[in-house]
């Protein structure tokens, strides 16, 4: 099933593949510069105690993203 959903909805320990970024301008640029281009695999590692931000494993590097940012990254569960 090809189910697309925001990265912020992926549970801890699961992997997903980037489909699309619903962002424009510099915020889009910033996410792309982190290596989050369509097709990239992302693993959800852990959430901070207050639930935000969340740590993701992207291309071998751990990167923290806020819920607001992750909610604009559309992915497919793996």
């Amino acid at each position, binding site marked *: 099933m090809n189910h697309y959903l925001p990265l912020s909805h992926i549970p801890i320990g699961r992997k997903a593949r980037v489909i699309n970024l619903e962002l424009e*301008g510099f915020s889009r*640029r910033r996410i792309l*510069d982190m290596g989050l281009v369509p097709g990239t695999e992302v693993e959800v590692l852990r959430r901070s105690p207050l639930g935000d931000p969340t740590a993701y494993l992207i*291309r*071998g*590097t751990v990167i923290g993203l806020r819920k607001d940012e992750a909610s604009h990254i559309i992915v497919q569960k793996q």
Partner: protein
Amino acid sequence: MGEVCRSCAACQLSSTDSLRVQYNVNRGSEGDLIIALAGNPNVGKSTIFNALTGLRQHTGNWPGKTVTQAQGTYRHREQKFVLVDLPGTYSLLSNSVDEEVARDFICFGQPDATIIVVDATSLARNLNLVLQVLEITPKVVLSVNLMDEAKSKGIRVDLDALSQKLGVPVIGTTARSGAGLDELKEKVYQVALGYLETNPISVTYDPEVDEVVQKLLPKVKSLVQGIHLNPYWVAMRLMDGDESFLQRLTHYTSLGEVWPKGEAALCPR
């Protein structure tokens, strides 16, 4: 501000000099070559900087920014080089203070060559910055660092293929042990002095984008005359609506900044 010619040798000389003065780049003498050192964070950039310059370095802040600037010197084949360590960044386009400093120095500091250090164990992530720098300047040498770590992880990097694809020299280095640094210095020497012509890969954009850029190009070309900046790249930034870049461009191309009064007198016109 009177009319100043933008193409004579005297003006070119004074414009690059004053740009470097603004960045606190201290050349010991006229013939010293300025080399920028760029790269992502945590790729061993500082280890390369320390290995090349030894104790001949000093640190301060970039003018007007609380971002550390380190400068050092080294010699190769009787030629003195001033190495300027830029902040570690993933990009030159996202407008953080670090990225602005790195972008402005590569664009307006007019380095004689730029070394980009990349992590051999995560090339895909690192090549983003490489492509961005290659769009601005062709005078680039790539240092694929942490080759020892890559080897122990079972990663083999085809340096020749990478060099062919990118169109610039690519050197495998392990800065911790000093491996590859002599070859790196030699390539930087050749590129900075123009003995080695590079032929960097050019990024192709959508026809719709290209069409608009072509319309902008004539105006942009006359704007950046005398500064070694790729007009196509400048046009792209203007299309992005990159306010920060526009501000710096205005700053560095306005006659008053690039040609202070005393130096304008050098112009034979």
